[in-house]
């Protein structure tokens, strides 16, 4: 779902494996965290409604059959079901091997320990228990007071302020940590499952367009990778604009095939820059 989202460099963190390679983890953005949470909340409500309906059905079936004591068992089941949904939903799913609730999985996120060690049960329980004061406490407080009709404006402001501090806490630190993440030592990272995209260059076909050296000296790696995005997205407007810009800059004639032109230019520029890499000259962008 979110796998096509671009990599945001400010959310990348050094994470060195025991083999000594930096995986450059991508943290989940605040927006994706919030959407995952909303999805989970909707699922919890749906599950609660389903539980209630199922138990009501059982209740009527049992009372129709004249079974005594069934209403007590059903009330106990409902109370425990509610308790587990409220306190266990996040923890139980995150303790599983996927390290993610259904909402997080749908968005493509997972919870990990910041030190790269195993994610322990204590950490998961800790990070989710903090949710109580981040969201449930002010909301239930406010809800109860509003229901009783005694919620004055001061109380509403206080509850919103309290929730606001905790809700927006992830935006105030660069690691997008919730208070729960802070306490438990966890991170929420992107866990995309996108397959390998096709190779844009392929074989060195002699039938390709050739470009003068001056045309290949125009750009660096940054522009090359932007061109890669344009080619992969295949948006006709973007392709036409980029092709026109490059032609003008390199003073090349328009041959009517924008995409073919860009694909060939990409291949030639890539090969040219790689030759530079071989001799230790990395040209990061057109200004360097």
């Amino acid at each position: 779902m979110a796998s096509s989202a671009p990599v945001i460099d400010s959310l990348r963190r050094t994470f060195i494996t025991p083999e000594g390679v930096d995986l450059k983890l991508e943290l989940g953005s605040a927006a994706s965290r919030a959407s995952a949470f909303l999805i989970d909340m909707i699922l919890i409500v749906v599950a609660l409604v389903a539980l209630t309906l199922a138990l009501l059905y059982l209740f009527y079936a049992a009372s129709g059959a004249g079974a005594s004591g069934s209403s007590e068992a059903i009330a106990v089941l409902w109370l425990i079901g509610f308790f587990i949904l409220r306190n266990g939903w996040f923890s139980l799913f995150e303790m599983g091997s996927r390290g993610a609730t259904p909402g997080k999985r749908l968005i493509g996120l997972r919870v990990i320990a910041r030190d790269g060690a195993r994610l322990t049960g204590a950490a998961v329980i800790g990070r989710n228990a903090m949710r109580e004061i981040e969201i449930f406490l002010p909301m239930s407080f406010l809800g109860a007071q509003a229901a009783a009709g005694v919620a004055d404006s001061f109380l509403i402001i206080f509850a919103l302020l309290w929730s606001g501090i905790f809700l927006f806490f992830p935006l105030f630190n660069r690691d997008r940590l919730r208070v729960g993440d802070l306490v438990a030592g966890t991170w929420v990272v992107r866990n995309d499952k996108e397959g390998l995209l096709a190779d844009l260059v392929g074989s060195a076909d002699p039938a390709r367009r050739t470009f003068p050296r001056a045309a290949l000296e125009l750009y660096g790696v940054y522009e090359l990778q932007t061109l890669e995005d344009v080619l992969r997205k295949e948006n006709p407007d973007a392709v036409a604009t980029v092709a026109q810009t490059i032609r003008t800059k390199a003073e090349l004639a328009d041959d009517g095939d924008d995409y073919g032109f860009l694909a060939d230019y990409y291949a030639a520029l890539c090969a040219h820059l790689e030759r530079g890499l071989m001799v230790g000259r990395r040209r990061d962008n057109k200004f360097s």
Partner: protein
Amino acid sequence: MNAPLTPTSDAPLVNATRFRRAHEGDWERLEAIVTRIEKRSIRSLSDDDLLALPALYRTSLSSLSVARDTSLDRALITYLERLCTRAYFQIYGVQTPVWRQLTGFFATGWPNAVRSLWRETLFCVVLTFGAALLAYLLIGGDPSWFYSVIPEGMAEGRDPSASAEFLRSTLYDKPKEGWLGVFATFLFTHNSQIAIFAFALGFAFAVPTVLLMLYNGLMLGALFEVFASKGLGPNVIGWLMIHGTTEIFSICIAGAAGIRLGLAVAFPGQDSRMDSVVAAGRTAATAMAGAVIMLAVAGLLEGVGRQTITNDTLRMLIGSAALIGWLAYFYALPTRRSALGE
């Protein structure tokens, strides 16, 4: 790796293509294995795949390093980063099986966490009983204090104006037949929520947690005074003790967990604030999870045990036995860590 001067029609033009052709098979196999583990479990792998996994992981990791240095194909680098990350978490970040986590929790995790919180727990116990004593003395001097401690709805008529007969009936009469289970469950979920709050509120420098402990103690003292002033002191002690030893102890442990968290936020000591909070948070969360289990036991004792056992001595005996059991489990039982001299 030299680029041919006169390219033939099949030779790759750029490194990324060459690299993809050489290793794509390995990456795809690793991806298939990792996807299988994520979807099912590591047990669903064949022996061949299981043996190949670490080698494939290291191959892909070195592919990533090489690709970063020699290739400009961003899609390739992104793919390898994501693949290696997924494989890393299946190899190094894999969770301990649930039953091992559970046995570890009961055998060492829980008692060790509670034991390491002994100072905070003691503080909470002193706080609770100090507040109880305060409420007892205050209400003894002026019964109107009662109403500022316990809200009217919660007292259910058990206030200073109640008659001794009525108070006695609340201690020994059974509630409506058949609702013991519901009552016990309700008490358990309600108290557990309080325990979780006591832990989470600790983050605010432990101030709300301390207030919660004080208020808990005040209510205890107020209730006790009402009964004691009508000569029902020993009776109410039995009524409270059967479950109260477990319940009050567990609330104190949850409070201790909150205080530990608050102290770590306020006074990190030698560690950085982040490290100190994480260390405290994990210990405290373990203790809090244990407190919820204790409250389930307390809910059973209160909802079922207290309603069926009306003998004061028996109630006190059960309460004392529970307390001794918990103390022995937390503080006296030898654990692995104490064997290491901690």
